[in-house]
């Protein structure tokens, strides 16, 4: 009996403390303590603010116009100048290339002329020596009577003695040359 009475009393006190109101300033809130602070009047009222009308400043407009004019003038002036500078630069580069090419071609021409001149000289020397070779009289070999033949006269119509003498002579010449090289 006692337990039941205690439980019943506790439950009764709990049901009394529970707040069913949504008002935060209800007397039952904060365990019976009422809010005693100041409340802002018209706290949830929004006031309409009129936008400030800015009058366009004439000075600023003039300044802007001047700046844009200057900028456009600058771009109008500088672009052709840059283009002109590019053209001049390209022209100069082309000129340099042309001069370089001309120099190289002149060098090549000179070189080829020099080569042809040298070749001509060599050919002339060869021809002169050939003519001398052809008109050279065969040298007589005193011991056997055989002749040393020139390159032109070495053929199957020449006598075997002459061919032999020429071969011996060539061998001697070769051995002499080899001796010179060794020395």
């Amino acid at each position, binding site marked *: 009996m006692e337990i039941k009475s205690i439980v019943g009393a506790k439950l009764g006190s709990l049901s009394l403390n529970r707040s069913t109101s949504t008002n935060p300033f209800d007397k039952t809130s904060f365990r019976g303590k009422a809010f005693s602070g100041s409340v802002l009047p018209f706290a949830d009222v929004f006031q309409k603010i009129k936008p400030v009308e800015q009058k366009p400043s004439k000075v600023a407009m003039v300044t802007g116009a001047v700046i844009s004019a200057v900028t456009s003038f600058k771009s109008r002036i500088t672009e052709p100048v840059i283009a002109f500078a590019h053209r001049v630069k390209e022209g100069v580069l082309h000129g340099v290339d042309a001069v370089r090419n001309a120099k190289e071609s002149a060098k090549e021409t000179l070189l080829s002329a020099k080569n042809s001149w040298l070749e001509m000289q060599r050919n002339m020397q060869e021809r002169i020596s050939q003519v001398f070779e052809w008109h050279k009289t065969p040298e007589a070999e005193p011991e056997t009577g055989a002749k040393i033949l020139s390159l032109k006269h070495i053929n199957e119509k020449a006598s075997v003695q002459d*061919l032999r003498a020429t071969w011996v002579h060539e061998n001697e010449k070769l051995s002499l040359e080899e001796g010179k090289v060794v020395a």
Partner: protein
Amino acid sequence: MNKAVEKIINSLEKHEDMESIQVLEELGTNSPDNEVREMTSRALVRKNVHDSLKVVIINQGKGINDLSPVVAMSTVNEILALDDKTEVMKVLDDTINMNSIDEVRENAKSVMSLLTLSE
């Protein structure tokens, strides 16, 4: 090789005088120059007469028996390239049967075998 010597060897090869073989043997096959020896041996083979073929087949250190393999092989090639091989077969046969030097006989046998195979 010396141009004059080359022309002399070619002239002696075509020469009808049989003395040309002696000159070729004396100055050509005894030359210290491999090129001269090679050219002389080929000229002697191309002459295709008994005396010239004898020089390059039966002599030790000459023609097919040359110490230089280039000269020896060049001579063998020239023998194989001959149109008429009758004379060379005779000389080879005589060498195989009668030569006193074993090496020369063996070389002659080898060339004979090559000739038989190539026919």
